[in-house]
Structure formats: structure tokens, C-alpha cells
């Protein structure tokens, strides 16, 4: 049964090829059903393989398809490594991907490039599976680049709008920085071990020199930072929301961005062998990212931007877990996060769909009455991410915080503050979108538009009249019919319900009360057991930690309730411009790159042109000039050659007679 392993990536690949060749001909909606079927088939196969894996020794199985790059004693195979870690990844990737494919059939309805969307999605699922199943770093890198390319295609899917195209480019270029780290890490691994195969080099990790291990992990960590949107390379992820919402849910929340966490968990023996400050770096960057992104999320008005920064923040939590030695906690949070964040992203997509492409939360409100299913599922996702027991996010976040406390009280406190912020901004979103006053419809529409226009005009210091005109034009467009939100079709609500179910219950994977309930911990034991920090919490400690987490989550919700529903505090005192503009990191980067950085790079380009190219061209010019002069020697006159022979002979004889002594 476990031998069916190859079918898991093969099905999405087949779906991709069929859609690539015949996508246009079969059109909507068959192309969508075909893509969904391919991924759903892959999920079913994964379940069968999972059942088979129970009987394998150590729950590990590897399959070599063929040799990819033979080079002397070194070779790279197309081979799959199935172990508890990759199995867990495969199950949730294919499962969520299948649901999101189904959702996309409804969401992308009527789009002119409907088949192409599913072509890319299937290619993405294939690449992601190669990433997690590959039995060596090079094959993982193949998947790594594949998901990066698909991410680029899908962010700029609606490339008619300039902003979307440049968001895609931003994601791609930022990821290149990380990819450089991954490549250097791979080379260093080969240099140190002579192989890039996980099963061959990971067991040798403990015998490696500490500096070498540190260097390899640091380089791979740079790769992970790029892919998983951590400081300083997180800037691409919020912009990536320019893509269609199912893409945001699948690629930029549930699966691709977790690849960095997967990579670090995969090489955990190397982390254990490296210098002791390295986990501190990982945990530090993780917790800093979590906090920074959470503060930015507080002040966003775009429904998807809030979720995007929230994703960055939650990924920071996963890195914190890795740094604190809680590898299973990182994977646990990755899985629960995939469920509740995908659920909420799809929910926001449903809202956007129902509001006729409106993404500004200030134009929403009271939507729970018109979109009941979306509202209920979104609320479940919200309770999960906010960390309200017994929803899944509570258990996974608390698991991470327990490891953080074991590492250092500072990490724990910052983590708690971030958890408070998380509960706050997610509640703010839910209250603004689903509760409160309805800010849509014919009358409110015009009124709000005017109000917003005034606000933005004041904030930006623009000419108020200008903004007024703009708002009026906007209002006119809607005046005739207004926005009438509606519930989404069934292809969209069914995935929401399934994801909400798992968002609520996925906590049972790893309940901390007794060892028997920690299914995920025990399942991952063969992969991460040796490097994992062992926590031995007493019952009292555990209860206190769980209580603190609960109080933090509930107080975050309570503050948001006071601010956004009871209006006890002016929201503008919390939504600082510093947060709304993302700590001005983006503009700082563009200022630097436009000014000083640009000049520096122009100097480098000048150096390249003059010195490097000059040297290369100079050698060529010197050779050419010398040859031009030398060719006159070859005159073609026989007597000239004869004379040369004569002169040469005389010269040699003269040299021999004068310089060589015969005595």
C-alpha cells in the first residue's frame, strides 16, 4: 500500500499536464473539477499510504524512482522519503489543497482565465509535494523553486492591473534572496558530508564540527526566512494578497509559507549540532516577527491585509517554537494554523465575493445576517486563532509558549503580548465585518464614502475637493443598485464548513494532559525526538500556563469589544499611523534602494563595465593587435622564409659559440 507513494505527486502533475494541454478546450467548469479531482485523488492516496506506513519499521519508507544527476561518486536521485514528518505534511497539504480547489470553482466562476488558474494550482500542489517528499536537499530545492514560481504566477494572476504584476515581482525577488541562502546551505552540506541525502547526512550531523553545522543551518535559515516571510524578508507576503483569495489561502497561509519551518524541522539534528547561540537567533527572529506583524495587523483596513500580517505573525510563532526546541509544537501549530487560517482566508474571499469585490472593512459590518455560513465558520476560525479553549489554536499556541517559557521568560512574555494582540486584531476584524452597523447599501454607501474621503484627505493633506470628486464618482456607481451582499454558492461554503470543523477540533491531535493524548508528539518522535527539548510540566504548571493563555485571549477579545462595538475608546488612538504603514519598512526600503542603494549599485555597474569588462576586452584587443603585427612576417615569399632560416641558424650558432663553453 505504501508503494503507491509515487502516485501522490503524480496525480497533480497529471492534472497539470492535462490542463496545460487541453485546459482551454474543456473550459469552465470541467477544468476546475478535473483539477480538484486530481488533488482529491492525491489526498485519498495519501490516506491509503498513511495506513500502510503504520506497518513500516520506524514509520519510515523510501522510494527511489530514478537517478537524476549522476556525477562521479556523487549522485542526486528523484527519490521520496516518507517519514512521520513528511507524512503529516502530505496529509494536510493535499487535504487543504483539495478543499481550496473545490472552493475555487465557485470563487473563480466567470473568470476569463478559469482553466489556467487550475493549471497553476495543480502545478503548485505538485511542487509543494516534491518539496516535502524529496529525499535530498536538491529535490527539496526543486520543489522550493517550483512553489516560488507558482506563487509568482498566481500573485500576478490578474496581471492587467499594474499593482498585481509588481506584487508578483516583489515576492519573486525577495524570495531570491532567501534562495541564495538555501543554495549556499546545500553546497556547504555537500562539501561537509559529500552527500545531500537526508537519510545519509542527518545521522552524521552530531560528528560534524560545530562551526560547519552552524554555517549550514544559518544559510538554510536564510532560505527559510525568505520563504516563510520573517524579518527582514517578510515584506513580500502582505503584497502577495494581490492574488485571488484561494491563492492567499492555499499558498500564502496554509502551505508554501510553512516550507521554511518544514526545512528547519527537517534538519533538526544539524541545529542540535550547531552553536548554542543559533537557536536563540531563530527564536529571536521568530518572536520579533510575530510581535511586529501583530502590531501592523492592528491598523490595517483591508480584510486580506489583516490576515496576511496575521500569517506573518503566526509563522513567527512557529520559528519561535523551532528556536525553543519544540519541533513538534512547530508542526502542530503549522497544522492548526493551516486549518483556521485557510478557513478565514476562504471566509474573507466569500465576503469579498458577496460584497462584489469590496475589500475595505470600513464598508462592511453586520454581515452575519446575510452571510450566516460564512459568518459562523469565520467566527470559529477567529476563536481558534485568538486562542480560546477548546479551539485548536489554543492548544498549539500554548504548546509553543510552554517551550518558549522553558527557553527564556523574555520570549514567553513577548509571546504572550503577541497572543494578546492577535486576539485583539482578529476580534477587531470580526466585529468590523460581521457585527456592528451595516456600512453598505445605498444610503450608507454615499455617507460613508464622504466620511472616508474627508478622513483620507485630512490624513494625507491632499486637496479635499479632489477627494470629494473621487468619492462622489464612487458613490454614483453604486447608487443605482447599492451593494447587496449575498451568501456564496455551495462549492464555496462546503470547504468553509469542513475547514471550520477542523479549526475547532484539530487540537485533539496533541492535547498536553497525558502522554497518551499527545498523538502528534509520539508520531513525530522518530524524526525530531533526539533534538527536541523535553518538557516535564507538572499538573499545576500546566494548569497555570493554560489559564494565563486563556485570560490573555479573552482580554484581547474584551478590549476589541470595548473599542469596536461599544466605542468606549477612539479606535484612532490604537490604530497608529506607524502601524498602518507597517513601521515604514517598505518606504524605508524603497527610499534606500531609490537613493543611496541605487547610487551604490550604479557604481558597481560602472566598475563592472570599466574594470572587469575592460580587462576582458583588453586581453582580446591586445591579442588581436599583436596578431595583426605578426602576420606581416608570413609574407608568402619563399626567399623570405629562406632568409629567416638562414638568419635563425646564424643566430643560434652565434649563441652557442659565444655562450656555451666546450671545455
Amino acid at each position, binding site marked *: 500500500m505504501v508503494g503507491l507513494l509515487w502516485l501522490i505527486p503524480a496525480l497533480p502533475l497529471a492534472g497539470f499536464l492535462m490542463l496545460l494541454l487541453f485546459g482551454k478546450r474543456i473550459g469552465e467548469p470541467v477544468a476546475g473539477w478535473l483539477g480538484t479531482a486530481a488533488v482529491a485523488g492525491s489526498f485519498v492516496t495519501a490516506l491509503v499510504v498513511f495506513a500502510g506506513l503504520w506497518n513500516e519499521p520506524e514509520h519510515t519508507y523510501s522510494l527511489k524512482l530514478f537517478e537524476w544527476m549522476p556525477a562521479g561518486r556523487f549522485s542526486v536521485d528523484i527519490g521520496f522519503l516518507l517519514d512521520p514528518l513528511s507524512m503529516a505534511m502530505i496529509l494536510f497539504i493535499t487535504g487543504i489543497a483539495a478543499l481550496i480547489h473545490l472552493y475555487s470553482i465557485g470563487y473563480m466562476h466567470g473568470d476569463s482565465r478559469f482553466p489556467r488558474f487550475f493549471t497553476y494550482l495543480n502545478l503548485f500542489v505538485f511542487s509543494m509535494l516534491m518539496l516535502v517528499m524529496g529525499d535530498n536537499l536538491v529535490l527539496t530545492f526543486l520543489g522550493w523553486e517550483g512553489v516560488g514560481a507558482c506563487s509568482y504566477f498566481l500573485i500576478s494572476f490578474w496581471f492587467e492591473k499594474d499593482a498585481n504584476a509588481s506584487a508578483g515581482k516583489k515576492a519573486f525577488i525577495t524570495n531570491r534572496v532567501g534562495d541564495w541562502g538555501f543554495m549556499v546551505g546545500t553546497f556547504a552540506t555537500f562539501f561537509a558530508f559529500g552527500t545531500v541525502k537526508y537519510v545519509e547526512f542527518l545521522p552524521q550531523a552530531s560528528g560534524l564540527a560545530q562551526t560547519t553545522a552552524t554555517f549550514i543551518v544559518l544559510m538554510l535559515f536564510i532560505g527559510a526566512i525568505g520563504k516563510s516571510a520573517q524579518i527582514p524578508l517578510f515584506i513580500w507576503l502582505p503584497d502577495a494578497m494581490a492574488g485571488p483569495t484561494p491563492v492567499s489561502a492555499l499558498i500564502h497561509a496554509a502551505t508554501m509559507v510553512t516550507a521554511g519551518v518544514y526545512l528547519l524541522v527537517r534538519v533538526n539534528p544539524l541545529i542540535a549540532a550547531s552553536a548554542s547561540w543559533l537557536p536563540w537567533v531563530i527564536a529571536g527572529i521568530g518572536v520579533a516577527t510575530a510581535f511586529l506583524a501583530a502590531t501592523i495587523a492592528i491598523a490595517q483596513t483591508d480584510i486580506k491585509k489583516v490576515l496576511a500580517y496575521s500569517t506573518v505573525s503566526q509563522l513567527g510563532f512557529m520559528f519561535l517554537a523551532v528556536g525553543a526546541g519544540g519541533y513538534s509544537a512547530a508542526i502542530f501549530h503549522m497544522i492548526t494554523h493551516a486549518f483556521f487560517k485557510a478557513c478565514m482566508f476562504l471566509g474573507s474571499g466569500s465576503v469579498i465575493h458577496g460584497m462584489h469585490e469590496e475589500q475595505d472593512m470600513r464598508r462592511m459590518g453586520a454581515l452575519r445576517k446575510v452571510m450566516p455560513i460564512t459568518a459562523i465558520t469565520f467566527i470559529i476560525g477567529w476563536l481558534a486563532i485568538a486562542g480560546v479553549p477548546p479551539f485548536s489554536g489554543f492548544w498549539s499556541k500554548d504548546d509553543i509558549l510552554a517551550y518558549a517559557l522553558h527557553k527564556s521568560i523574555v520570549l514567553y512574555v513577548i509571546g504572550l503580548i503577541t497572543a494578546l494582540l492577535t486576539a485583539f486584531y482578529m476580534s477587531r476584524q470580526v466585529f468590523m465585518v460581521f457585527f456592528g452597523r451595516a456600512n453598505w447599501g445605498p444610503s450608507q454607501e454615499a455617507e460613508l464614502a464622504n466620511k472616508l474621503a474627508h478622513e483620507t484627505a485630512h490624513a494625507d493633506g491632499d486637496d479635499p475637493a479632489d477627494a470629494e470628486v473621487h468619492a462622489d464618482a464612487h458613490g454614483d456607481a453604486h447608487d443605482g443598485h447599492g451593494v447587496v451582499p449575498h451568501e456564496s454558492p455551495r462549492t464555496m461554503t462546503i470547504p468553509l464548513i469542513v475547514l471550520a470543523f477542523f479549526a475547532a477540533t484539530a487540537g485533539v491531535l496533541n492535547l498536553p494532559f497525558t502522554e497518551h493524548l499527545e498523538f502528534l508528539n509520539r508520531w513525530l518522535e522518530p524524526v525530531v525526538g533526539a533534538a527536541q527539548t523535553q518538557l516535564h510540566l507538572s499538573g499545576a504548571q500546566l494548569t497555570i500556563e493554560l489559564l494565563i493563555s486563556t485570560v490573555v485571549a479573552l482580554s484581547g477579545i474584551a478590549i476589541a469589544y470595548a473599542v469596536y462595538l461599544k466605542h468606549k475608546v477612539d479606535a484612532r488612538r490604537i490604530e497608529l499611523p506607524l502601524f498602518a504603514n507597517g513601521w515604514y519598512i517598505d518606504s524605508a526600503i524603497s527610499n534606500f534602494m531609490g537613493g543611496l542603494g541605487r547610487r551604490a549599485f550604479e557604481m558597481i555597474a560602472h566598475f563592472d563595465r570599466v574594470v572587469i569588462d575592460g580587462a576582458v576586452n583588453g586581453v582580446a584587443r591586445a591579442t588581436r593587435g599583436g596578431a595583426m603585427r605578426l602576420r606581416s612576417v*608570413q*609574407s*608568402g*615569399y*619563399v*626567399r623570405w622564409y*629562406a*632568409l629567416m632560416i*638562414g638568419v635563425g641558424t646564424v643566430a643560434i650558432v652565434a649563441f652557442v659559440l659565444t655562450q656555451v663553453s666546450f671545455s
Partner: protein
Amino acid sequence: MSPNLPLAYLALSAILFAIGGVGLLVRRNPLVMIMCVELMLNAVNLTFVTFGRMLDDIAGQVIVFFVMVVAAAEVVIGLALIVAMARRRPEANADDLRLLRG
């Protein structure tokens, strides 16, 4: 044998060699140039024989036979080339052959 006699032979061969060399350099007619080469070869032959006699060594005379064989082969090739050239361009001289250079 007077002690000056070998010296006279050597001087003669030097003169012959010089005449052949200068002829090779200044003449344009291929046939004459081959004759000049022959002259130089024979001047060398004379030197070999003279030294062989002076040093009482038979090897000097043996080498002369080798040189004559090589010279015969060279003449065969040279004359064949000259005939081929003369058939095609009767008026051509050695300098005109520079058209053949690369």
C-alpha cells in the same frame, strides 16, 4: 698531403654554399632556385668528405650517401611541382606563389 689542402677544400665548400644561398635568395626562377639548393647540399657534402678524411672517419663519407638520396627525393618533388606550375602558368615565378599563403 699538405696541411693547407683540407683548409682549401673547406674554403671552397664555404664559397659554394654562399653562392647557393645567395642564389636562392635573389633568383625568382624556381628551376634555378632548386639548382641553388643542390649547390648548397653539395657544398655540405664536400665539407663532410673533407672532415671525414681529416679525422680518418668513414662516417663522413657515409653521410654523403644519405644526403644524396635525400637530395634526389627532394629534386623529384621539386621538379614535379615546377612542372605542374609551368603547365598551368608558364610565365609564373616563385614570388607569384605567395598567393598560396594562408
